[in-house]
């Protein structure tokens, strides 16, 4: 447990550093900006999804699940998109085997959608390695998610870490997903 808490703390510190360095960057001339954010989900495969909106860089309330306010949702290790079986939006995704910084443009075609509840765009188990020793869900290095958002904008995203939230006693209650992303506000494919 201590190891997890430690890892969590290290990650949290790193986030703070990343965030603070971001805020110092001049952002006026640039249409895209790289942000680092986090999303907290319950350690349960039956609780409701946590939703995220890239444009605002904000968590969306679960009550808005039937709207296009969210782009992707997360429950334990399951990603859903605002399309097909899960939402009224147009959200799609491509999981690319490329280093985040080397992805300079989003493909215009080839996006996968959540056509049914069992055939999802992002397959569970495809993006992490589960370690039975530490029970960690480590996001695979060198994978970049390219999203088309619910309102047809392009985003590249990298999962940085999935940590167990600090807890008292041995009970895992929450996972903290940390990710960086670049949202192209002008609607073009370039990052």
């Amino acid at each position: 447990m201590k190891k997890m808490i430690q890892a969590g703390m290290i990650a949290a510190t790193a986030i703070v550093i990343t965030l603070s360095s971001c805020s110092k960057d001049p952002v006026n001339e640039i249409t895209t900006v790289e942000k680092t954010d986090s999303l907290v989900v319950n350690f349960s495969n039956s609780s409701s999804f946590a939703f995220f909106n890239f444009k605002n860089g904000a968590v969306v309330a679960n009550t808005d699940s039937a709207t296009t306010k969210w782009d992707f949702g997360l429950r334990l290790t399951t990603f859903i998109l605002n399309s097909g079986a899960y939402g009224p939006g147009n959200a799609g995704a491509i999981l690319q085997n490329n280093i985040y910084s080397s992805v300079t443009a989003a493909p215009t075609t080839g996006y996968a959608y959540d056509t049914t509840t069992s055939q999802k765009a992002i397959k569970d188990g495809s993006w992490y390695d589960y370690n039975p020793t530490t029970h960690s869900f480590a996001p695979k290095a060198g994978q970049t998610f390219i999203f088309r958002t619910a309102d047809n904008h392009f985003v590249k995203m990298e999962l940085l870490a999935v940590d167990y939230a600090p807890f008292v006693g041995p009970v895992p209650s929450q996972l903290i997903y940390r990710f960086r992303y670049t949202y192209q506000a002008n609607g073009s494919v370039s990052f």
Partner: protein
Amino acid sequence: MSALVKSILFSFVLISILFTGINAYSQYVAKDTGFNKVYTIDEITVSTTRTIKSIGDIPVPIQVISKKFIQQSGSQKLIDILQQQTGLILSDNPLGQSLQGYPNPFGSGIQMQGLDPAYTLILVDGEPLTGRNAGILNLGRIAVGNIKQVEIIKGPATSLYGSDALAGVINIITEKPTGNNSLLQVHQSSNKTWDFSASQSFKKDKTAIQIFANRYSSSGYDLDKTIYGQTTDPFRNYSFAGNIQYNLNATTQLQTSARLFTQKQFNNYLVYTANQPQAVEGSSIETDWSFNNQLHYKISKKLKLISRLYITGYKDNAEVFMMSNKQLFDKSYMQQFLLKPEIQVEIGDKRNQKLIAGAGYNFETVEANRYPDKKRFNAFYIFSQKEWMLYNKLNITIGGRLDKHSLYKLQFNPKLALAYKAAPHLTINASIGTGFKAPDFRQQFLFFTNSLVGYTLLGANELANGLIQLQQQGQIDPSVNITPYLGNNTLSPEKSIGINIGGRYLLHNKTTFTLNIFRNDINNLIDRYNLPFSKTNGQAIFSYININNVFTQGLDININHRLNNLFSINAGYQYLEAKDKDVIKKIKDGKMVKRDPVTFVSSYVTSKEYGGLFNRSKHTANLQLFYNSNNKKWGANIRANYRGRFGYSDINGNNILDDGREYVKAYVLLNAAISKSFKQGFEIQAGAENILNHKDKNKLPNLPGITYLVNLNINLNQLFTKQL
């Protein structure tokens, strides 16, 4: 069997030994037990080549651990004795190491030539032990007090023994009847560890009998007081063994032996139910028995027939209960049975020119709570080996074995070995052979759903049934097309080719050098994969597939040197590289990325950074110094084992070993023992293990700190003879 029955049985054997020991005094004259005798290689015979040979005649790398070494170490744990040998490394199961200060649930075994414990065949008197837990056998099932010697053959031995002998064979030879002899041993060591052994051997006319009984218990230890429960929990076990040799006439001998082991391991730990910590307690009971009947019939000087019947059973039952309300929390069991008749002929009377051939049949069943029903298998095998001696210098051995198993296709595994006597004191060996390992039960039959996360693991043979069942239960959406997975998903055995080249050199009759260079290529390794659709709860379904290719290569060197009449020294070293070929290719192709866990910067892994498979030390070494006084009354030894750094687990998102922070640091284990024997027939020994007190509660939970031991060995016959 209840504890009471075991205690009574144990006391009975103990009393009978004391009784016969006292009665035997008048007819028994103590003799040198060979405790301080120095052997030359030709005097040590081994049987792991399926025929009795002196080790100097064996063209493949072999190591023998003598009773003397075992006694001098003072240890009662076989795994500790094995890991003091060059190239035998204590290794956790790759499925799981420790979990936050708890030992891994799969146990530890012996890694040989860089291959995981599941790739070494463990035999007792030439017959396989059953009851592997995810590939690992609990070596604690073999009571050290009843071991006569341990024979270790490195490199594939499948051509003689079939599945699992890819890295080699560890054959544990138990004590045989040796005249009239009564021995008692009391061992005490740290962590309230007690061991009581008693053995008795009789010989009358054509019959020789040996019986052995042992009780071993320990209270375990706790390396981290801040977490609930001990690092290892208490256990106690009983072993009984009996061995009868009956010479029907000059040409026929009957050997029958039986073995029973039973262990109760207590468990007490925390579980999480409904997000609340709950303490549970319970126990697991492991029972292992075997019956081994052999008939040796010498038809003529040139023809010998051996028939063997081996029957063995293994059972593991575990139950844990909530401490708060005594309700059952979890229950698991595994049960295995093997019946193995075999016949072998040995043709020829000249040394190193024999032909052996044999055939056998395995009837096996296995049942476990995580497998849907009772499984039955049948396997038939034949093997043959022929040796030639050319110009009195070159020994050529060719062998092969066919295995027809009901679960996988016919396997043929050949082996060629050469031994060349280049000079009177120099022998050069070379061998090449193939090996295979049958998919384990878990990979074939598992049907398991994780209750916390909700994913499902299906063994390859259960995949079709499991998917149909999950879909019928609504756990897989009806729209998912499962038909591509309903065909034949049978796994193939994992295959290897092993090459060993080396030699042995004897200098001035005082120093022996041995060198062996090895390379193993293993193909078709079975790994878990993720099905392309998920369950309705969003969680993944996993099954098993033949996919990986790895190699291991390296060399080992041993030097044994007698300094003078008093001192002798052993030194050993192994260099090892073990890598995944697919990972090497991915790195070369620039497709392997790492992400620093602190800076989150991603970059490509270089070939230089790749450290190979986890759990392998590039460098391991040992150094042992033995002293025996001239009057043979005093003995002392000091033994050091070095284990170079080895990979523990991934931290940078690519599941391979490529970062300095992913290693366990190198360490040294230092052990020492001193003994004094008295002419009355007893010996006292004291020792300490892990003298440097090396500990790592997270990464090495199987290693307690420094422990002390005391042994008292009594030879009853000698004791009472001298008192007369």
